[in-house]
């Protein structure tokens, strides 16, 4: 589709990373392979490689974030880039400056890469269409649309534990309706060849027409988890726990919380993932979050390597294929 060519340059190389949708499998695999090479950087005494030396990366966050911004910042610094963090939520946008004007100002500072988080779906794509041809845009989460680096670090984690995507059953559990992570995970899992993807949650948290993305819909954990290799939990936002969508965090835990007993439905070697931060006793029982099937902390570690891979590929300093 024409609209997706914006992510790739004329040679099919990654230019912007806005969504996992419509990217070829070879490119997603290349991200994972590059990330594999970068994982060793973090173990060295000097945790730096010179791939982005002399480049300026601007973390442009229109929405508060500590974890994602920190891992992007670390990834850029380990690539030897100069990093600038801009918390727009607290500055220009509040003064009524338009997104287009903010961008013009920042571009005038000769930025090479924008890492963007924005509350509006499509904002990074809008920015990618505005910036000059030498500038790359990495989506660090937009509205309910996409969070592609989170999805790729999840893919990285799955591959570490499960090797072959084409044999897997994966369940995504929770608030799919408001989740950009879930959408990006679904597209990536599809492209990497996962034959069975399930979404599990109450009808208020599964969006209309989600089947069109190629997933099976389950409204009970008992059926949804049966025989799966991977359980991907989603965070339930505080403001949704007691709202018109759900009566209480307590009832949610009672019906859709991941407990050791429910996890038994999955394969014995199933892994449990969560993008964090977790709500213990709401979407997940501490015994599961801290249990031996949990790979939640490994996800965080992988996040830096995956972001290094994506940033260096978009800047043309890492391999585009395996």
């Amino acid at each position: 589709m024409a609209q997706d060519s914006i992510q790739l340059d004329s040679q099919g190389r990654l230019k912007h990373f806005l969504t996992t949708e419509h990217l070829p499998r070879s490119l997603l695999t290349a991200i994972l392979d590059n990330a594999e090479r970068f994982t060793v950087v973090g173990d060295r005494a000097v945790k730096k490689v010179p791939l982005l030396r002399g480049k300026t990366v601007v973390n442009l966050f229109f929405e508060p974030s500590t974890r994602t911004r920190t891992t992007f910042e670390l990834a850029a610094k380990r690539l030897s880039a100069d990093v600038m963090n801009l918390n727009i939520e607290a500055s220009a946008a509040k003064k009524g400056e338009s997104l287009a004007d903010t961008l013009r100002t920042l571009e005038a500072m000769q930025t090479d890469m924008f890492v963007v988080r924005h509350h509006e779906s499509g904002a990074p794509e809008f920015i990618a269409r505005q910036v000059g041809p030498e500038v790359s845009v990495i989506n660090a989460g937009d509205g309910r649309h996409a969070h592609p680096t989170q999805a790729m670090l999840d893919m990285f984690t799955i591959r570490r534990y499960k090797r072959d995507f084409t044999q897997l059953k994966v369940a995504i559990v929770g608030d799919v309706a408001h989740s950009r992570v879930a959408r990006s995970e679904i597209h990536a899992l599809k492209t990497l060849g996962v034959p069975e993807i399930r979404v599990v949650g109450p009808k208020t948290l599964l969006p209309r027409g989600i089947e069109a993305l190629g997933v099976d819909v389950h409204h009970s954990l008992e059926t949804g988890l049966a025989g799966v290799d991977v359980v991907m939990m989603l965070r339930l936002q505080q403001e949704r726990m007691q709202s018109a969508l759900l009566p209480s965090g307590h009832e949610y835990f009672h019906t859709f919380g991941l407990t050791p007993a429910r996890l038994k439905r999955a394969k014995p070697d199933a892994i449990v993932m969560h993008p964090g931060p977790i709500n213990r006793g709401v979407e997940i029982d501490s015994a599961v979050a801290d249990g031996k099937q949990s790979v939640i902390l490994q996800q965080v570690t992988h996040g830096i390597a995956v972001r290094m891979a994506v940033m260096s590929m978009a800047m043309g300093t890492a391999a585009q294929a395996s």
Partner: protein
Amino acid sequence: MKITISGGRVIDPVNQRDEVVDVFIDGDTIIGLGRTPAGFKPARVIDATGAIVCPGFTEVGARLREPGAEHKATIVSELEAAAASGFTTVCCMPDTNPVIDTPAVVELVNQRARGVRGARVRCIGALTQDLGGSVLAEMAALKDIGCVGVANAGHALRDSNVLKNALAYAATLDMTVFLDAEDPWLAAQGCMHEGAVSTRLGLPGIPAAAELIGLGRDLVLLEDSGARAHFRTLTCGRSIKYVNNARKTGLEVSASVGISHLVLTDEDITRFDGLFHVRPPLRTRRDRARLIRGLAEGQVEVLSAHHEPHDADAKAGPFGATAPGISTFDSFLPSMLQLVEAGHLDLMRAIDAAAVQPARVIGNASASLGVDALADICIFSPGELWTLSADTMMSSGKNTPLLGRSMKGRVLATLVGGRIVFERKA
């Protein structure tokens, strides 16, 4: 001035005429067709050979942006654009700044329009003061100054009791109420149709239920009050059944569909392009097919432009952050002809829906090309090819997703009350 329009194919739905015949105009009136009236010496002859001559179009609810948002468009710019697009009458929605809720603002609009070489403007007044939804506007005064109806113009009336009373009061004054059927709670967070596409894009949706519930409530209250109402820009296929049933029970209701909703669907929103952002939203292919059939069969009377010009900044942003609305005057005729060419409706009915029915809705009994009719006329070339671009558009608002597309059909000349207000230079 005496004018002859010669050699054109006259299509006149009111008189069911479709033939090549000359039209003779004296002053503001059509005085004859066919044979030249005795002693008629035209000061101007418009050669309409190969063109279609039809009653001028009427728009039942456009945004002209003046007063208050002149950086988007002005009364002059949009009335000129309307005339260049075949419209002879444009109704202006009351959500200006200040709101059209007093005779003074109506006077201001009329003042600005005076002397314009363009379509004539008619005001739709506010239903409630400042469109606030709590205190009734001075509807009698608005009627006296010439408002063709009242509306709350996209500001949903949350309080059903206020709507009930507003309808009853409008019925007392025999005024038409223009309604936007939308439940404010279901529509609150949304910016596009709720369905598979909004789910994929992660854009908050407006479910079809928002329109159906709004429509259902309004129809029940109309039954109660006996008011005459026009539903603006229905977008859901199922809405047609609701309106049909209401008509069968004797309610005086009419409805329109927007031209954008007949040529585009939610599936066209692929790149978060704010130019596709419109309220009510573009719906599904299935809805579009049902709306077109409803229009062809007359269950929906009116084809509306739903013209909403914006400045470039209003559309410069991610989809949900852009202002809703599409500038439609310039592409209206080609889009309409596209539906005709696709075989969805015949040309006679299309002209009926764009010219005759909307005129009826605002109380002009007849928009015809019969003898003694007011000479509000559109002359267009059905086959002329051109490209819609910021340069070829007359409207100040260049906000349309059809930019760059090839258009077939173009207005050659427009007469308002016998006066040539637009003529395309060869």
